[in-house]
């Protein structure tokens, strides 16, 4: 059963789609109106990252830094030292990819109030190919002390995550996608940094049980897989872990106890991201049989977003297969 705060009648044929970066653009503009300490810095990707709405509304609070991501991170740190709330935006491959050390030393070690916005995360970047598909970004940010890591599921959640990040005091990384992502949540769906949300609850009468823990853009696929599997007689629920760090371990452990089997789903390497985080938590607290769905230790390639999601085993049938692996 779908949670009641989601879009009605979710199905692959009817679901509306929009890139998560649109939600960021709206959220940033709103955050800028609410708090004049919010500033934005961008590396020649103002339109693509949707920083342009903010830039045209608040030209004095927008810095065009050119194609220079190392500088981007540290300029953000410097602005935060003077009381600003900088949102620094580029593609995730370059920030926090190329500038990881600057993110570590000048943002996290300083505990600077900088928000790192990594657009074009995941293989669904599409035809640009592997060089532009960030699938390690959550692993490299999750390892940093003081850092919060968020993967919004859709446009609405990206907007809420942007507003929440502006209010939160400290470093935050969130990733955005390029292609249109199914809109699953609504303006009413709750969002809180560090809180997992149950998005789908299994049919009680199904004896075999599997819990899917998902983050980011694949929430819709996880929900569709759960719906199908419940029809096929397996009691599958979905826990949406928008915040990958700090992990909502309490909710996760409860979820693992309830289902006894866990599938993780993320548009990211299965090493070091959500799958890694869940395995670490459950390994120490409640060892549970697991299958991780995501990119399996390889690079992406060119193709259309949906083709790539299927090719790398993150589409609805692939998630269903992962569930079956645990119960068959």
């Amino acid at each position, binding site marked *: 059963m779908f949670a009641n705060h989601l879009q009605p009648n979710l199905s692959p044929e009817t679901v509306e789609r929009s890139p998560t970066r649109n939600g960021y653009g709206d959220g940033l503009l709103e955050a800028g109106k609410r708090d004049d300490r919010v*500033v934005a810095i961008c590396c020649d990707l103002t339109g693509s990252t949707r920083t342009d709405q903010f830039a045209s509304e608040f030209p*004095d*609070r927008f*810095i065009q*830094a*050119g194609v*220079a991501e*190392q*500088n981007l*991170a*540290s*300029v*953000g*740190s*410097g*602005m*935060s*030292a*003077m*009381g*600003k709330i*900088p949102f620094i935006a580029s593609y995730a491959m370059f920030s926090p990819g190329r500038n990881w*050390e*600057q993110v570590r*030393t*000048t943002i996290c*070690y*300083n*505990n600077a109030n900088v928000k790192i916005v990594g657009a074009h995360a995941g293989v669904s970047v599409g035809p640009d190919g592997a060089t532009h598909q960030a699938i390690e970004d959550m692993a490299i940010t999750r390892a940093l002390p003081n850092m919060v890591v968020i993967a919004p599921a859709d446009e609405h959640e990206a907007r809420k995550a942007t507003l929440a990040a502006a209010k939160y005091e400290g470093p935050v990384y969130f990733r955005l996608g390029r292609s249109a992502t199914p809109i699953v949540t609504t303006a009413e769906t709750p969002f809180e940094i560090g809180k997992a949300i149950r998005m789908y609850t299994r049919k009680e009468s199904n004896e075999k049980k599997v819990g899917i823990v998902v983050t980011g853009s694949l929430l819709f696929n996880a929900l569709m897989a759960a719906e199908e599997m419940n029809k096929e007689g397996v009691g599958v629920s979905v826990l949406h872990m928008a915040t990958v760090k700090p992990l909502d371990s309490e909710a996760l452990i409860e979820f693992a106890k309830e289902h006894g089997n866990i599938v993780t789903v993320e548009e990211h390497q299965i090493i070091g991201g959500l799958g890694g985080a869940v395995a670490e938590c459950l390994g120490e607290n409640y060892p549970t049989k697991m299958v991780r769905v995501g990119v399996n230790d390889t690079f992406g390639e060119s193709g259309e977003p949906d083709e790539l999601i299927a090719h790398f085993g993150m589409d609805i049938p692939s998630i269903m297969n992962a569930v079956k692996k645990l119960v068959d």
Partner: protein
Amino acid sequence: MQYLTSEEVRSLELKANEIRQSIIEMLTEAGSGHTAGPLGMADIFTLLYFGILKHDPKNPDWEERDRVILSNGHICPVLYATLAHAGYFETEELLTLRKLGSRLQGHPHRTSLPGIETSSGPLGSGLSQAVGMALAERIDNPYSSKFFYCLTGDGELNEGQIWEALMLAGKEKLNNLIMIVDRNGIQIDGYTKDVMPLEPLAEKLESFNFDVQEVDGHNVRAVNDAIGKAQAVYSQPSVIIAHTIASKGVDVFERDFRWHGNPPGKGPEDRVTKDKQAEVALQKLRTLAGTIEAQDIS
């Protein structure tokens, strides 16, 4: 611009000498750390904290203070010693440098110690942070008299990020930014001209829209005048290339790149054996037997 009297110059030179002695003592006690850069920059740090800066050691977070951003974090012994002598904390604490639990980390940590504006060590990122601070100040108060002093090494200029920051500072015409390059001509592996030639440095910096001055980094009055001129520059960021002598003040250590990353007791032995290095350095400084005295007379 503040003119320095001969008495003031003399008093700053004596203070710099005390700071150099503290640097030798703390590095010797730590048993590791960098010697050449801290000794070489002692005159400039002394001038900044005892002659130039708007700051309040008893209120290190005072909003209106000028900011000193140390980009080449490895020379932090001179920053720590200067802060202690200026009254930010007790000079006794200097002897905890690099020890477990100390506020004086091997490379500066912003939240550990009062007076530290940023964490640094990995080279090249301090200038970007100074640019960010200067930009933020300009948004809030375009007529502010606050200055952002960023201190960098010369070997540090090998880092690509420096040039990214220079581009942005030049583009944004940040006249509240004053960069000071410690041009001592050495880096870990040797002389800068051999490791990675920088010249013509002044022309390179000019081409990034910086106002460029070159100065003898041990001539306190000349540095003071250069900073005064930099403050007066109207529509550009400024850089002062301070020509310094690595390990200045201890003649037997001077100009030798092997003193970059070694403390007294672990340095090259051709002129002084390891067991005598700390003692000789302190004796040279106490008696002004190094080149400081020659310069004082001139």
